[in-house]
């Protein structure tokens, strides 16, 4: 299974690089789907079939679709790509890249301090996961339910098209920032 892991993770890293370097939002989204699917395979190779399935269904399915909707609603096309091209100069890349690489290096150093341990090939079954989820984590599950609920309410509220373009306080006192 380790070969599957290496291949899939290689694809995931590669497509992620593509995601963050694309100019066209829709291209980036397509690479993101590839990255998510590759990660799903990685999960499978690590013996987590339940996580892999959810990765495909929720991430690659629901979340990316949401993104696509928004991109289409905002009608982001060639003009955006042109803009992105202007923004993504070397100057913009250099600093963040160095910082990120330093972080990566430090994390690698921290990880490699200990002796390597092997991964068991066994599978953690969905049954085990669900027993744990509805057993010891029941409260957390309920809290996540709240979170999703607030997410829905918040999204519905914020997404409403309002006539007023400013908050009422800002309207009365325009310079109060």
């Amino acid at each position, binding site marked *: 299974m380790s070969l599957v892991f290496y291949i899939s993770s290689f694809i*995931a890293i590669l497509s*992620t690089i593509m*995601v963050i370097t694309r100019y066209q939002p829709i291209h980036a989204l397509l690479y*993101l789907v590839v990255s998510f699917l590759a990660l799903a395979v990685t999960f499978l190779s690590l013996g987590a079939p339940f996580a892999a399935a959810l990765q495909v269904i*929720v991430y690659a399915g629901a*979340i990316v679709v949401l993104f696509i909707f*928004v991109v289409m609603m905002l009608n982001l096309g060639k003009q955006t790509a042109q803009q992105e091209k202007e923004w993504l100069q070397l100057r913009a890349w250099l600093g963040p890249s160095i910082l990120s690489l330093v972080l990566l290096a430090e994390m690698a150093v921290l990880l490699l301090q200990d002796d390597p341990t092997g*991964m068991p090939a066994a599978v953690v079954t969905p049954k085990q996961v669900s027993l744990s989820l509805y057993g010891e984590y029941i409260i957390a599950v309920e809290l996540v339910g709240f*979170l999703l609920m607030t997410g829905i309410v918040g999204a519905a509220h914020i997404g409403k098209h309002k006539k007023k373009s400013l908050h009422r306080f800002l309207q009365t006192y325009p310079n109060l920032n």
Partner: protein
Amino acid sequence: MSTLHAHTVLIVAAILFVLGLAGVLTRKNIIFMLLSIEIMLNAAGLAFVAAGSRWQQPDGQVMYLFILAMAAAEVSVALALVLQIQHQHKTLDVEELKELKD
């Protein structure tokens, strides 16, 4: 190929995380920033799943599930915000949105 080491998986997760971070830092478009954040969350999820797999415990996947739910909620609110921002400011350039300045 010999056996898979836990380190390798975590290094992959770290690389994905750093890539997402670099995306957040460099892109000016809010949509791209959100995509990068999804990548970072995913990387964190990978680390959890790997840990759960290493110890043969379901907790890693449970945590991944929570991250998933959180990401879903976050994305829905964030995209609603993006719609409003585009509607009101006619731009998605994050550098233009500085109303929270002190």
